[in-house]
């Protein structure tokens, strides 16, 4: 392509402007979390002010942030690992032992994801209670895993399908058992897909709020439930809410920034041919 310098300038300006525009709400959240409550609702909105750490210390004083963060970490990592363990073999089997029903099964799996969680709340609540798993991390891990499973299977399936069949056949001729083949050939070849599938699952689990809010109370609360402590109490709360929100999303957003490349590479769902 002829790189017209004028064009590059336009592109640069446009892209930066749009990116800043789209990022603005988050930037604003960041700013607000350093304001006092009165500054937060100031009209017109304040861009320049003397920052205060008050909100963060208040959040830290009121809630055991580390406990929530730990729970978030455990549940999202746990459900990611569990999900990969279940999804990988299924996707492998779908990709390499295709039958006519494979696509139907895949679509059926995806359709289970379409049922609104609210509709199943009472049944699931009762089940969890019967199993004595209310307010426990395993319960959340299981629920997160199950609700992410369809997407994970699909993602892995598409990334496995990119592996040429001949390589597997070569392995088979080399005398590889199904496990060796999976462990030494399929897995290493799909690390990209596996990683980005894991990352996506991690993000989704981290941000899951409905089940986290409804199935746990004191011990297993995740950061998503932390927000509920700060949203609309009686009295001014915007700055504190911003601080709590920021603390809740910062780990995953920063994590997302760093793993962006990896995530993007596998986030194709077979869309790239």
């Amino acid at each position, binding site marked *: 392509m002829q790189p017209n310098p004028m064009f590059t300038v336009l592109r640069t300006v446009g892209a930066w402007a749009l990116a800043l525009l789209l990022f603005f709400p988050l930037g604003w959240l960041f700013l607000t979390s350093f304001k006092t*409550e*009165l500054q937060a*609702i*100031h*009209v017109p909105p304040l861009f320049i002010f003397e920052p205060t750490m008050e909100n963060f210390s208040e959040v830290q*004083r*009121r*809630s055991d942030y580390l406990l929530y963060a730990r729970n978030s970490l455990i549940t999202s990592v746990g459900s990611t690992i569990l999900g990969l363990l279940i999804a990988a073999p299924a996707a492998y089997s779908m990709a390499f032992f295709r039958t006519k029903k494979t696509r139907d099964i895949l679509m059926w799996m995806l359709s289970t994801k379409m049922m609104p969680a609210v509709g199943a*709340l*009472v049944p699931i*609540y*009762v089940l969890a*209670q019967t199993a004595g798993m*209310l*307010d426990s991390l395993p319960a959340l891990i299981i629920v997160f895993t199950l609700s992410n499973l369809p997407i994970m299977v699909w993602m892995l399936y598409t990334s496995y399908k990119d592996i040429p069949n001949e390589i597997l056949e070569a392995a088979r001729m080399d005398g590889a058992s199904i496990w060796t083949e999976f462990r030494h050939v399929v897995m290493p070849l799909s690390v990209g897909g596996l990683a980005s599938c894991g990352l996506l699952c991690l993000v989704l689990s981290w941000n899951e709020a409905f089940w986290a*809010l*409804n199935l746990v*109370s*004191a*011990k297993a*609360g995740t950061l998503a*439930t932390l927000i*509920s*402590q*700060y*949203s*609309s*109490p*009686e*009295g*001014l*709360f*915007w700055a504190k809410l911003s601080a709590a929100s920021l603390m809740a999303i910062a780990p995953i957003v920063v994590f997302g920034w760093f793993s962006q490349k990896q995530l993007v590479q596998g986030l194709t769902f077979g869309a790239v041919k």
Partner: protein
Amino acid sequence: ATELVIATVNNGHMIEMQKLTPFFEKANPDIKLKWVTLEEGTLRQRVTTDIATKGGQFDVMTIGMYEAPIWSKKGWLLPIATDAAYDVDDLLPAIRAGLSLDGKLYASPFYGESSMLMYRKDLADKVGFKMPDQPTWTQVKEFADKANDPKGGVYGMCLRGKPGWGDNMAFLSTLVNTYGGQWFDMKWQPQIDTKPWKDAINFYVDIMKKDGPPGASANSFNENLALFNEGKCAMWVDATIAASFISDPKQSKVADKVAFAQAPTAVTPKGANWLWAWSLAIPASSTKVDAAQTFIKWATSKDYIKLVAKETGWNTVPTGTRKSTYQTPEFLKASKFAEAEKKAIDTANPNDSTLPKSPYVGVQYAAIPEFQAIGVAVGQQMSAALSGKVTVDEALKTSQTAAEREMKKGGYYK
């Protein structure tokens, strides 16, 4: 040690209590407190789901005056075992009545509130308006019209508009009450399409259209509080608890300019102001009853109030529960709204809040299980009417139908 899981709403007094946990745990070394603090709507969902499915996640629940009578009647709550030190007779009678069944207290009030009118003395002076101690809505409107100055960033009247039975319907119920209306007649027929409702809602929509802030149909307590604190409201009718916020200079730009009056009236003073108490209760399924009793007694005792006073000052104590609080000179000195608040609470009567006789308990709600659905549906319609999406008549008609549907579904009549 016994671990108590306590579900509370994320309001200031509760958060203060949470911070005072060490005092309780030091006094009761064998009890540990675990807090689950949730925003009001979520709390209600969680607590209801849990108690109804016997989930047993919570040992102590924070509930309101709406739930208390219904749940205690169902046997879902254990009575509070009061002792002499607790001095149950010290509780404000209206509050105590609302939380008791057959003379037994089923939930201990942690803090209570009514509603009242808050206004800007400076603006009233400016336009030459003299606020009576209990104004009528006509008077209030007159002041609102005069004070309204959107260009100058001041709106005549701030009222709740966000849909929800605990949001806009809490206020609107009192407005309907004072216009002589009610939710149900003695045959449990919804009365929403009657004249008092029409008058009340038309008045509400009129005044808000003319003198209200933009976005009023999304405003509830906090949004209005923010507006008022920013100096954007000349008047505001809402929970008495607001008084402590707007007169706190740390939060409010107009702390020194506010004044208080009783909730405005129209046809009748009956039910013009609501009554609410956030209370602590023990679900029947709890396995740690003794510890829970100990905790509740501590949290709602006179001593607790004194503890808060000692720790953070008398202007921050939970109010609206005990007569003794209002007899404490330090308290009266610290909060200039104490008197108005007590008067408002005293005049509210959940058992007799409407002009015609009603079969239900509750000022700003009807304490029947079906009410939540009705309140939510009607609230939606009222907020739609406020935003101009539908006319008042349509909104009321739809609401009436919705209410009839729910009542029919609830089996009140065929």
